[in-house]
């Protein structure tokens, strides 16, 4: 008994004082990688991996020692035949062991996605047990490095800025954030295509430019601005804002606070299939503006129906436009193939061989219902 107790005590103390016992790793002895970027390079070593490493010593709150101009991060890059090998290459550059537990963003270069497809990236990220399924994955245009290599306005570490952008993406409405879990689910599903937000660096800031749509594993098109908004609405993934010229040449701006969409595939006129999209949008009129008007404008209650109609028309046009683009790119981001297989299995048997063309040719009917009743600035 005494020996047993003694051995327990000795083991416990040994664990304390032997460095490297099990997984012991002091927080300041690691190089914290916060974002991973993947680019394509012609040649034998096609994978070019960039890692944003936080310079933690510059991040102390209230630390007045730095001159404030130094960047609190640096990017290291390496090329290799495989993604894992290129990531591993970072150990050669770093005096501390790189840690990936706090990676919050994966940024994949547009060129890589168009040339090689997303397969190697997803396969690397899903296999890696340290990278969480909830990291955001996005497209960097024109390359991942072009996005990662710049400091951002508000945050010391760019990945924190990307996080913020992704968190607010649905409010701004141009696109929406996609995490690794969703991306790999869409990627593994044959009857649903991938869609990722696209980030660019412009005018000293990083921002979400639009949505990159995929056909199978390759990126095929980008939906920017209004098109991105239309697709986000169709997928119920954004609120957004819209401005239309309405009653008496007034520019009416509406902020949406709730968007609900319902996509179905139905038969019309002798067995022909049609994609049916119904969207309920609730919003508030937040601005009225008119050329040469010198007063604060207001709308009458009776005018609301007319304004609502104009907003509906505009929203419908935006959505139709973006869906047409998606169809043309043969990117089935809405999961139409899945719906047809479930609801019309016989039809699916006929269509599945040349699904791409069949999908592009499917007619779409969009119905938009806008509710502006709560607007406070009517009267």
């Amino acid at each position: 008994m005494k020996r047993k107790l003694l051995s327990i005590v000795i083991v416990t103390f040994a664990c304390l004082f032997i460095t490297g016992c099990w997984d012991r790793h002091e927080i300041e002895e690691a190089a914290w990688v916060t974002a991973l970027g993947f680019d394509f390079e012609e040649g034998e070593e096609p994978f070019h991996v960039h890692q944003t490493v936080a310079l933690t010593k510059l991040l102390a709150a209230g630390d007045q020692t730095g001159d404030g101009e130094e960047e609190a991060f640096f990017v290291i890059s390496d090329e290799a035949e495989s993604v894992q090998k290129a990531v591993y290459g970072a150990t050669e550059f770093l005096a501390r062991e790189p840690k990936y537990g706090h990676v919050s963003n994966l940024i994949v270069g547009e060129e890589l996605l168009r040339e090689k497809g997303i397969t190697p990236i997803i396969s690397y990220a899903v296999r890696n047990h340290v990278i969480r399924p909830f990291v955001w994955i996005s497209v960097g245009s024109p390359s991942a490095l072009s996005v990662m290599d710049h400091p951002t306005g508000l945050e010391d570490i760019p990945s924190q800025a990307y996080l913020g952008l992704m968190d607010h993406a649905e409010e701004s409405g141009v696109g929406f954030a996609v995490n690794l879990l969703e991306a790999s689910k869409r990627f593994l599903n044959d009857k649903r295509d991938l869609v990722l937000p696209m980030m660019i660096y412009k005018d000293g800031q990083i921002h979400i430019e639009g949505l990159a749509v995929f056909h199978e594993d390759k990126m095929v098109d980008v939906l920017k601005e209004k098109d991105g908004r239309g697709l986000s609405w169709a997928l119920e993934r954004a609120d957004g804002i819209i401005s239309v010229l309405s009653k008496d040449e007034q520019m009416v701006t509406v902020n949406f606070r709730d968007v609900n969409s319902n996509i179905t595939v139905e038969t019309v006129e002798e067995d022909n299939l049609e994609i049916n999209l119904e969207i309920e949008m609730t919003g508030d009129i937040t601005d009225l503006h008119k050329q040469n008007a010198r007063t604060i404008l207001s709308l009458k209650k009776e005018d609301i129906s007319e304004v609502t109609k104009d907003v509906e028309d505009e929203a419908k046009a935006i959505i139709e436009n973006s869906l047409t683009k998606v169809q043309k790119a043969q990117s089935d981001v809405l999961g139409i193939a899945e719906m047809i297989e479930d609801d019309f299995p016989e039809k699916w048997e006929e269509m599945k061989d040349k699904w791409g063309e069949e999908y592009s040719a499917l007619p779409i009917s969009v119905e938009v219902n806008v509710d502006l009743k709560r607007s406070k600035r009517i009267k």
Partner: protein
Amino acid sequence: MINNIENKLKSIEVLFGETEDLVIRRFTLREDSHRRAAAIYLEGLVDTEVISQQMVRPLMNDTVQIKSLESLEQITDLITVSETKVVKTLEEMVALILTGDTCIVVDELEGGVIASSKGWEQRAVENPLIERTTRGPHEGFVESLQTNIGLIRSHVKHGNLIFEKYEIGTVSSNSVMIGFIKGKAKPTVVEEVRQRLTKIDIEAVLESGYVEQLIEDDPLSVFPSMKVTERPDIVSGNILEGKVCILVNGSPFVLIVPASINSMMQSSDDYYERYPQVILMRGVRWIALLIALLLPAFYVAGTTYNHEVIPTPLLFTIAATREGIPLPAVLEALLMEIAFEILREAGIRLPQPIGPAVSIVGVLVIGEAAVNAGIISNIMVVIVGMTALSTFAIPQYSFANAVRFLRFPMIILAGSLGLLGIGAGTIVLLTHLLTMRSFGNPMMDPFAPLAPDDLSDSVIRLPWKTSMLAPLEKLRKMF
């Protein structure tokens, strides 16, 4: 028994070992036969005014006509002190003289008269030193058993409030009293207390801490199984709830049994303040308990093993403050905790006038200098400070000490096994607490076994039932 007074006095002196503070005042009785008498007492334990004015003077006074004193009972009629008693044996006399009584012996009469003359220097009833509250009576127990019983009686006016006396100590005996309300206290608990008190075999009991350690359920446990208090209002409240209190002569700390972890987290002002504040106060206290026990351990586990549980911005802040610190987090935490314990211990021992100055040196100068020198990180100072403050938020001092002690094994576990170690340590602690009993009552009462009725006075305290019923009655009348 020898009836010759000089022989008798001699034997008493021998029994006392010829100590210098034994006073024998010889005088002649005012009676026809002019017999010799003597008053025997211990200097320092008695009120000499009482002896000279109320015992010796009436017996010597020539205004009173005494023919002849036939028995000691006649003497008790003459002296005017509040309590008298006739004893026969020398041993009885000695025992009572030791408690501060005076013995009067008369030549040719067997035995002696014991007259109460206790009157040693006593502390007045003052504000309790250890247990402070914002509201409630400003009185604390003192060292005198009689005063303490009086304080309890003044709060609990109940005919069935019973005090039982036990003399404990084979060499120097001391009075230990148990108090409870007959019919309210659980008979099994009362019987258990009696049993355990009679079983005590010790040379002397100097403080209630002796009794506590001699009768507790689990002497090896780090947790106390009794509530200790110096506030009469707490004792009274507990007696009214059906608990048993144990008072020891010479100690202002009273023991209350049975106790539970829940009762140790209660303070008397919980019952004096209104319930919303109390819910906040109690909530804060339980959070403080968790912080005191686990915060340094979680910090060590987070910074050494489980980096992923820390949110990214916090991780960077911690990493930035730890940059350049030569010690691993676990050693840093242990060192700082030990440093704080030294400071606390020194603070208790320091002479009062220099106490504040040294505390300031300890906290500000050493802490600040250590951080500037890069030996310890800022965040560690914050954590140790938080932990230290939290232990003082626990109302029961002995329980806070247990938590303070357990923090160290927790840090070591966190430093060797990470969160897994903290989990293992917590499981062991909870298992221990769940099996622990205080005089037959589970320590985890009312959480386990669950007593839903008692939960209203646990982590939260609901309003008093009467006030809760009032609005209900109003509602009932409306419909």
